[in-house]
């Protein structure tokens, strides 16, 4: 059933490096982009697409594929390079990112991008869409799963909780929500704008199982978490609350809220890429004490 290639951690790490490098490159084409929101989910996306999702890149509409929906659509720039790398569309398409008539915009378009299971861009819609997919897959007796990636700022949308209520009530065990807790949103830190914590208690109260992914950049934790929620023994929908760092991988982006949206001039692009390359190189050498796999 598993059709995507199963990769070891060092290869996953190099894929995540590829994702971040491509986010830098594509944002250079666009002239602006959501670095912070894309970098916070690079490892999680990599683990999902290269290890856990059942997909057929040559058959994007395969009826029993696992679905992935992007509630935080502004981070889709991190998914496009993976879809191209898996062969959903030629890598050359990436070079057209955001240019006139490109299929690839800041937010995903399911009618233009092979491998994009649903369009998004209006925050809070895609958990409802995912509920509909999960219901349909149940009716059709498919064993496919639906994974919905949401932001922590997104949790403020009332529609998220309408969807969560129905999913819990209907015990949609084929539905997995991931909340990327990178702790920032457009205007400010989430805790400053509208603090939606404690999310674990909220999702539990809505009838969900909750799994805490304490470090959404740690491969061991990510793989263990997904192994648990994809083990086929679920009886309820699962919410993975993933603590991540906005802008993870580039030092000057990790320390401030402001890189939710931005643009790197040529010199800072090189600086950011050099930091990513240095991290990648450090892992290709023998491990020394103090390195923690991140």
């Amino acid at each position: 059933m598993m059709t995507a290639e199963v990769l070891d951690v060092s290869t996953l790490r190099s894929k995540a490096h590829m994702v971040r490098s491509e986010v830098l490159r594509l944002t250079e084409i666009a002239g602006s982009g959501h670095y912070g929101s894309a970098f916070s989910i690079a490892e999680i996306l990599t683990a999902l697409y290269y290890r856990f999702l059942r997909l057929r890149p040559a058959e994007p509409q395969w009826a029993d594929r696992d679905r992935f929906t992007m509630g935080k659509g502004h981070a889709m720039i991190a998914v496009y390079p993976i879809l191209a790398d898996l062969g959903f569309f030629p890598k050359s398409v990436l070079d057209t990112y955001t240019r006139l008539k490109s299929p690839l915009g800041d937010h995903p378009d399911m009618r233009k991008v092979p491998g994009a299971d649903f369009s998004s861009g209006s925050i809070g819609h895609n958990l409802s869409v995912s509920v509909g997919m999960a219901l349909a897959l149940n009716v059709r007796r498919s064993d496919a799963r639906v994974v919905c990636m949401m932001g922590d700022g997104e949790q403020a949308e009332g529609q998220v909780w309408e969807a969560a209520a129905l999913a819990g009530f209907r015990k949609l065990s084929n539905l997995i929500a991931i909340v990327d807790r990178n702790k920032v949103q457009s205007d400010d830190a989430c805790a400053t704008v509208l603090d939606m914590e404690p999310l674990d208690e909220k999702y539990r109260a809505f009838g969900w199982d909750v799994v805490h992914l304490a470090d959404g950049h740690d491969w061991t934790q990510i793989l263990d978490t997904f192994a648990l929620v994809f083990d086929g023994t679920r009886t309820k929908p699962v919410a993975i609350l993933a603590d991540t760092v906005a802008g993870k991988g580039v030092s000057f982006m990790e320390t401030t809220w402001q890189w939710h949206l931005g643009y790197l001039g040529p010199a800072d692009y090189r600086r950011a890429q050099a930091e990513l390359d240095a991290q990648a190189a450090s892992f290709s050498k023998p491990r020394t004490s103090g390195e923690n796999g991140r």
Partner: protein
Amino acid sequence: MSVSETTVNAEFDARTWDMVGSLNLSKQLVSGDVLVELARTRPEICVLTADLGRPTRVRVFKEHYPERYFNFGIAERNMVGAAAGMAASGMRPYISNYACFLAVLATDNIRTDICYPNLPVKMIGTHSGVAMGFYGTSHHATEDIGFLRPMANLTILAPVDALALRQTLEATVDFETPLYLRVGRGRETPVYDAPIENWRIGGSAQLRDGTDATIFATGNCVAFALLAASELAAEGIDVRVVDAYSLKPIDRDAILAAARETSLVFSAEEHNVIGGLGSAVAEVLAEAGTATKLVRIGFQDVYSVLGPPTHLYTYYGLDGSGIAKRVRDELSAR
């Protein structure tokens, strides 16, 4: 986590910017500054946003009146309902959000909670049309005029630049019924260098007279229509250009005058031609029984392709040369 109001610091590449720095380009979006001034003598004025206080540039209000600035988070319907509750309780709320995440997203709440009870809530829908470019249809608002025009009690105005926005906000500050202001992303070419003469609800501004055709334009298309008129003037085609800043009520007299005095009427808008300015002009022409032909320039019942906004205006024939071509083609076909 530092959340300073400054842009990225000096050690960065001069071409590097973050969100805060980029906002300096949105010079026409002056609503925050104007509301700060208006609120000085009006303690009932408050400002609401749904996580878009920075990009819609009203966050400056928070610095002056933190107790009257409310960021609702990404929860637009709640914000609109709360604005209605505030208005029903003696406050005079201004909502500032992207047009897509206000007029398009919260349509029912605007109708049922604000327009039906006829409450004094003012809504500023920014980044209207396709100003969000490659963000795609989710972030575009090419339906907002059409959604809102049938809402009884609601007035819809479209100030095209900073000066017009300031004038509109000042003129409507004591307005006691629902108001929607359709504005751009703030990077528009200014049209006005002085306040609009005889500005009024239901008015319009003739920016250039002409005898061959009239273009009623709104938003970005006002500046584009002026460019088109200049281009056509060089060819001996004499075009009248009208800024239809009052979309509802529409300036009926100006439309009927154009129908009498020029042989063709055009509408130009960054909106679907169904439901927007073109429809409003068509209603006036048809009900008056005029025989003057109307040509509606805008999105022809399609969702925009992706691309940078300036490229989209050219692609859809909304820019100066696109509008000029349409006028030229229609006149030569007669």
